[in-house]
């Protein structure tokens, strides 16, 4: 994996900047070149499929055709929604010659179905098995985290192929490599309310609140996710949830790439860790406090 196609999508240029920054930072130290798909357009995730089904396929179809024509074979789409749209479209057009023909006609481009798709979990999994092997330190030892997959990182039989859809564990290895302890909690695949972000904010607040509450009950000190939508819902809305009196949350929400970046010794700021609504910089402090406490306890025990 020397070079891989890169599809940032809208969120990585907006609310998901940290994901973009952390993935790029990781790729840099791993020596992987991210080749951005030239002239990419919207993946069709947010609004397109509500408007027009053809549009929702045609938009990502164009991206696929462009990427293929640019000689790419693998596409990393860190945004979970982009990944789902791109891969989902690939599956649909390769299965249905009729749909493929229709899309060819609409876009005037030809996609031959040669691309492979990588989401952020798989990408990081490959990095820690490959170029980053042995280069991660358990800097977050003592930190308890809830691994949160949401819908886009766990569902869709043809999109998420190598995961247990009900009890995914694709992040576990990376988190443990970073030293974090992954807690057993209930809401790893529950809905954050992403689909209602704009239309029914109350529902989002309810759902996100339940999720945060379960993570707290399970003893998590941070939530780790791979999806910018989940991230923004959980991170951004905690204050509103608290204001509404639903709870009093103060839970850092990190991207998996950020956690692994910390373990790899990257500067937090280079990954945008300082940009979160809920202070995320503290995870290192929590970890080091826990490490100190444990060392002290071990000392006492020795005596």
């Amino acid at each position: 994996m020397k070079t891989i196609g890169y599809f940032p999508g809208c969120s990585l240029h907006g609310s998901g900047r940290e994901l973009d920054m952390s993935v790029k930072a990781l790729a840099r130290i791993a020596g992987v070149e991210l080749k951005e798909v030239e002239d990419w357009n919207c993946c069709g995730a947010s609004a397109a499929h509500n408007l027009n089904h053809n549009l929702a396929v045609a938009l990502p179809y164009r991206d696929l055709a462009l990427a293929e024509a640019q000689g790419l074979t693998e596409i990393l789409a860190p945004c979970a929604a982009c990944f789902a749209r791109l891969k989902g479209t690939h599956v649909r057009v390769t299965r249905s010659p009729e749909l493929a023909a229709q899309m060819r006609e609409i876009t005037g481009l030809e996609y031959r179905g040669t691309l492979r798709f990588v989401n952020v979990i798989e990408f990081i999994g490959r990095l820690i098995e490959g170029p980053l092997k042995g280069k991660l330190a358990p800097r977050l030892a003592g930190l308890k985290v809830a691994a949160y997959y949401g819908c886009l990182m766990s569902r869709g039989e043809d999109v998420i192929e190598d995961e247990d859809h009900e009890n995914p564990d694709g992040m576990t290895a990376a988190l443990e490599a970073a030293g974090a302890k992954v807690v057993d909690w209930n809401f790893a695949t529950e809905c954050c309310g992403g689909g209602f972000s704009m239309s029914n904010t109350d529902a989002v607040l309810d759902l996100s609140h339940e999720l945060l509450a379960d993570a707290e009950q399970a003893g998590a000190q941070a939530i780790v996710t791979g999806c910018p939508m989940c991230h923004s819902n959980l991170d951004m809305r905690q204050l509103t949830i608290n204001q509404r009196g639903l709870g009093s949350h103060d839970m850092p929400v990190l991207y998996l790439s950020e956690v692994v970046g910390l373990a790899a010794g990257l500067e937090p700021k280079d990954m945008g860790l300082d940009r979160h609504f809920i202070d995320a910089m503290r995870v290192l402090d929590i970890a080091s406090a826990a490490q100190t406490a444990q060392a002290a306890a071990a000392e006492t025990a020795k005596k």
Partner: protein
Amino acid sequence: MARVGVFLCHCGENIGRTVDCAAVTAAAAKMPGVVHAVDYKYMCSDPGQQMIKQAIVEKKLTGVVVGACSPRMHEPTFRRAAAEAGLNPFLLEMSNLREHCSWVHEDRAKATEKAVDLVRVMVEKVKHNRKLHSIRVPIEPTAMVVGGGIAGIQAALDIANGGKKVILVEKSPSIGGHMARLSETFPTLDCSQCILTPRMVEVASHPNITLMAYSEVESVEGFVGNFDVTVRKKARYVDWSKCTGCGDCWAKCPVKKIPSEFDAGLGKRTAIYRPFPQAVPNKPVIDQEHCIMLTKGKCGACAKACQRGAINYKDQDELVKIKVGAVVLATGFDLWDHSAYGEYGGGRWADVIDGFQFERLASASGPTDGEIRRPSDGRIPQTVVFIQCCGSRDDKMGKAYCSKICCMYTAKHAMLYKHKVHEGRAVIFYMDIRAGGKGYEEFVRRAIEADGAEYVRGRVSRIYRRADGKLIVKGADTLAGRPMTVEADLVVLADAIVPRTGSERLAQMFGVGYDTDGFYSEAHPKLRPVETSAAGVFLAGACQAPKDIPDAVSQASAAASKVLGLFSKPELEREPIIARVNENTCVHCRACIAACPYGAIEDFEIKDRKGNVVKRVARVNEGLCQGCGTCVAICRSNSIDLDGFTDEQVFSEIVTLE
């Protein structure tokens, strides 16, 4: 020289309307070897049969062709008639002029032409028919019943009461099966053990029944009437002939924390144990895996405690060969492992239990003495959620079929729970309620109306375990059309019924077919529901399909009656359509031996007078061969032929069609 008689039936107008019977008769009369050809309105009638009989005698016929309906209809009739006239019945063949010709064609000329061909083909075939004689096989009038659950017990008792010997083989230390673990039974709510244990005792004391508990079938040879079954008597480490079942040994056993299989893991047992107090035989065995003496070589507490000196740590498995004439398979079922359902906790949570665990909780003899207490903390649950169809009717994750008994036992569970915890809530998620059976629908209604079980039509999508121990059950109430959340203390999953592990290996040993789920296949789904494709092997109970107790018992009695029917004669008569090996030309490549679906072809050594092996060949076991002819087509040197469908017969048919 062949002297063939051809008899054409008009079948009223059924054949005659489309086929010109007179023309066919005329054509038949001219066929080589035909010395007699007549047609008649109803050949199967008494006068018709009389015509055949008379001609056989008067014209000295060596073969008969009856052109009439399908041989599936009247071949036995006409063959009987031929036999009565002194002609070997296998020298008679039928041409199917009705189902295969007059009923399916309109054009009279073409139908008549085809009818002539159909008759000609059989005339040519019958000229090559040989006299065949029914095969007689002696029957060993002892039955083996595999599995000591209620079905096996019932089958064994029925056969034994019919006056025949029975060997009952049970792999666990006691008979009783799942029924012994149940608290009450639907729809009458009578105590399961109360109705079962007298039967178990009867088995133990019946003079015609030999009980082989803690034993398993190891291998099978032979065929209907003459099976040689090797049974592995597992090492018990207790000499049952000395043991009185006093219990001193298990009282002294230091290993006390082994999850009890009988109590579905909710209770504990010792390393030397009997599964439950009413066990039959009421004698302990030592669990080799957990016994300290057997694993580490020290302890010996039970040996010290035993005043009869019955403990024998050197005991070993023993193989016993038993000859039986018939076999009843009653191996029963297991529950499907619901850990595949990640959304229900994937088996991680103690308070998400299966039906058997609930039975043990509700049973007066269970680990909680009949109080419903949840496994995690022993508290009495105030809300219990029952989820039906867990793994059943779920092609994707579980099994495609309906497990049939879950609707009923879930209603029973809800009822039992409500009877014990009056103020508690029993919520049942169901897909459909299938309560077909005598008194079953009424039973479910009673659970709803009299006992207040809350039935919710919908699936549960997810169960969470909250930090306070509550199980949050999220589901849908599809009748109300809204999502639904229940905070439960205990969740009972009605897991799918699956065949016992290892049942496929047993089926292979006995040559019994099984379906993709592993349930044993009956010989015919409608008309032969207790027989299998292996002659002399019968089915009883849930090994064939999910069944409740009355169904299992009925089938067991049916299987027993089949066994008794088989044993009613000293010999077995079989159609002589079997394969034969030409040992002169056989080169013993063993392809037929590998191919035979019945294992009916054996290696055989031809010896000279001094006993030296001259040649090895394949030989067909007449008792096992069912006459499919697969070996015949596989044999490269064509050293096998199939009586009734010999190469000569088939070739003459094909050549005649030119």
